[in-house]
């Protein structure tokens, strides 16, 4: 399944995004960002609030347009949202007026997949996230964590080679968050490493990034300021976070976030400051 | 487009819309020249409305203040027309104001009294709900039968309609006062009476704002309805009286005046209550 083109699965070239504030001032939310992401990579975008990581993700999703620069997925330039780029939002995006199973099969319905087939696929994914017993339930009957599982099942069921997640577990409690991280990794790993989808995961939680990512991109004030490879083997457990190379990465990340003094200079300093 | 330029554009569009409507009226007046009576066009152009039609309103001046009535043989005059408009407007606005004041006071007091305890609230619940469902405007004939068609009857009718609305609104507002305010005051030692005066009364004001605006709308509607159906004076009376002769132009002029009054009153009360509610947290400001 290896396709040379997919060594550049997601490609951003000099992407800029400028907003006009209510008082007329121009704000640069994303500043000259260029990234190349390989197929099957799990990439986390990390940074403090307002650093542009969510804006960047929304541009890759096609929900907003870059002011400047190109974004290409699987070699094709994107224009608007598409089902090859599924997205999980931080807010509850499960449609309250549809039952759970109807929600999960919605992406398939939009593709005009026949009823019986899409029911089967939807049921399979619901089972994988552990919600087979609430297939007929209304979303208002489910807890926040359960709704997130439905959202994840929906996005996986609708297919698509790229997965975008915008701080999906931010609103959940500690336990639920960790459960969902496992659910996500299980689904992602399904079918072996060759069949993995490409994932872009935005978070401000450093531990979450370390547990999930192959690669961590650090952002600050709209600019990419670091690109760290996370080499620890999968599956990762509590102790994996204590490995020396993981601890080193964590220190670097905390320093970027301004929570620690810098121990070693970052790879792409380019004159920025983190302000400690 | 920024927020401010969009707002400005929208304001311009509003002006244009009203200008266009006025323009359409003018065009119609030229196209549709039918006349209800010789010399009284059905759709009068703006230049006619404010001159000839305005003059005809002096027909409705009953005489007095040194200006004789047209019915007694006097000529139509701008002065008579002006006096006529003033006196009828005062009648209509007077009925509305008195009805609002009376109905509002009664409704508020009854609402507060009934909210004194859960028992009284439950006791009055069904009769209140029933009265609220009885369509107000359909009750004009009943009130006219009871209280006549002069000033008193109309005021009472408006007062009744307002009282029902304000009563229901007050009971609802008191019920929705965040219990934390009440608990707080009680734990600080407030007596029932002090509680009412210093906590409940101010606290219901945000919720009462929508009730007040609703009453204003219902009040205008009630006054107009009452005047349509048997009053001897007032703007509604003029409209209905003119309608019997199909004097569309007079009806239109007086209706415009009426719309002006209602819009101004609504805007003024809306602004005033919003100003008085500046202290309320945004979630309660309606």
């Amino acid at each position: 399944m290896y396709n040379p083109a997919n060594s550049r699965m997601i490609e951003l070239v000099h992407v800029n995004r400028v907003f006009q504030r209510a008082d007329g001032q121009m704000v640069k939310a994303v500043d000259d960002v260029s990234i190349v992401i390989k197929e099957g990579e799990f990439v986390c975008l990390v940074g403090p609030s307002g650093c542009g990581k969510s804006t960047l993700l929304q541009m890759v999703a096609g929900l907003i347009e870059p002011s400047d620069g190109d974004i290409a997925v699987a070699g094709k330039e994107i224009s608007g949202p598409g089902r090859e780029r599924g997205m999980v939002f931080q807010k509850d995006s499960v449609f309250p007026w549809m039952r759970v199973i109807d929600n999960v099969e919605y992406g398939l319905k939009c593709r005009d997949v026949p009823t019986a087939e899409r029911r089967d696929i939807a049921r399979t994914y619901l089972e994988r996230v552990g919600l087979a017993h609430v297939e007929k339930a209304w979303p208002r009957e489910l807890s926040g964590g359960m709704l997130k599982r439905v959202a994840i099942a929906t996005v996986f069921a609708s297919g698509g080679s790229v997965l975008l997640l915008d701080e999906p577990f931010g609103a959940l409690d500690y336990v639920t968050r960790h459960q969902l991280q496992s659910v996500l990794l299980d689904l992602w790993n399904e079918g072996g490493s060759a069949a993995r989808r490409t994932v872009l995961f935005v978070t401000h939680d450093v531990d979450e990034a370390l547990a999930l990512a192959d690669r961590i991109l650090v952002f600050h004030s709209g600019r990419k300021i670091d690109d760290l490879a996370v080499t620890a083997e999968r599956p990762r457990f509590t102790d994996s976070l204590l490995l020396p190379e993981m601890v080193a990465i964590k220190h670097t990340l905390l320093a970027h976030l301004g929570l620690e003094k810098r121990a070693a200079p970052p790879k792409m300093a380019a004159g920025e400051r983190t302000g400690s | 487009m920024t927020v401010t330029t969009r707002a400005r554009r929208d304001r311009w569009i509003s002006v244009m819309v009203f200008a266009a409507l006025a323009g359409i009226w003018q065009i119609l007046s030229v196209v549709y020249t039918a006349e209800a009576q010789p010399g009284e066009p059905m759709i009068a152009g703006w230049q006619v409305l404010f001159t000839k039609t305005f003059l005809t309103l002096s027909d409705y001046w009953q005489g007095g203040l040194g200006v004789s009535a047209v019915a007694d043989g006097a000529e139509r005059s701008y002065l008579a027309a002006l006096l006529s408009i003033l006196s009828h407007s005062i009648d209509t606005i007077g009925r509305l104001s008195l009805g609002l004041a009376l109905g509002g006071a009664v409704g508020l007091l009854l609402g507060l009294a009934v909210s004194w305890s859960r028992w009284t609230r439950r006791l009055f619940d069904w009769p209140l709900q029933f009265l609220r469902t009885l369509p107000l405007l359909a009750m004009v004939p009943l009130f006219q039968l009871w209280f006549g068609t002069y000033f008193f009857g109309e005021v009472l009718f408006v007062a009744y309609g307002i009282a029902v609305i304000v009563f229901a609104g007050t009971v609802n507002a008191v019920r929705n006062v965040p219990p934390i305010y009440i608990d707080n005051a009680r734990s600080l030692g407030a007596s029932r009476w002090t509680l009412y005066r210093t906590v409940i009364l101010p606290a219901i004001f945000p919720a009462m704002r929508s009730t007040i605006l609703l009453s204003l709308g219902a009040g205008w509607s009630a006054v107009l309805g009452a005047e349509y159906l048997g009053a001897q004076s007032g703007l509604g009376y003029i409209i209905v009286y003119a309608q019997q002769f199909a004097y569309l132009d007079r009806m239109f002029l007086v209706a415009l005046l009426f719309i002006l009054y209602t819009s101004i009153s609504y805007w003024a009360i809306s602004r005033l209550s919003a100003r008085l509610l500046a202290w309320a947290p945004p979630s309660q400001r309606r």
Partner: protein
Amino acid sequence: MTSAEQFKILSGAPAVRLSRLKIVLAALDPLRVAGMVLFVVVWQVLTLGLPAIILPTPLGVVRRLLSDFLSAPALSYYGVSEANLYGNLIYTTENVAIAVTIGSAIGILAGLLSARFGLIRAIIDPVMMTAGTVPILVAAPFLLIWFGVGRASAVCLVIFYVAVILYVFAQRAATNLDPVYEESARTLGATPRRMVRDILIPATVPEILGGLRIALAGAWGLEAVAELLGSQSGIGKVLEVLAGATDPQGIMATLLMLGLTAIIVDALAAFAVARTTKWNATAL
């Protein structure tokens, strides 16, 4: 608590269904019933002091309603085409039904469009908002001249009224729709048609139905008054005739019938609303 247990409680397992029964029983609480009885008793007491021509007795009103419901020959003397109460009620109800259907269609369409297209909103809003502050009754005499005496003027008046209310509610419902639903649908591949059909419409239905109930409540009175002003049939005409004949008992009986009809229709509407929006958390 496992998610399965959570789900059982939220979806109304037997323990929960029992407490719902308790809610229904609470509505029939003795104090409320007592309140209604007290109301009737006070009314009866008042009739002892006032002549029957001013205040008829409660029992008298009810008896009059029952007897005139199917047949009231006196009405035909006054030129009412249907000589009974229920015939006129049907006429009025027909008018209300037609007007509410047409008015809500116009209002909902305009409201949804105005929420989507800022230009349309800028054009329609000033007109609708002014119409919202002015009593719609002001248009009644004009409509009477335009359409003459008959159904059309009354129905037209109520159409205006309902359209304005539904416009406001539909616009608000669409504007309050959380953008995350639209974004999610787009990323799942929904076409604009699907967006309207699967997202916009189901999401705005609860609020719009709420507006419909409110509009319906006011429509009865407006229709009655429009008929009072100029009509050959209907509740309004009956009221006009009875007022002219100085018949407070008849008037109160007719009003009672109108009120009961409004209550019953509202209850039916509430039931229909609850059934179609059982997904809505706040509608519980």
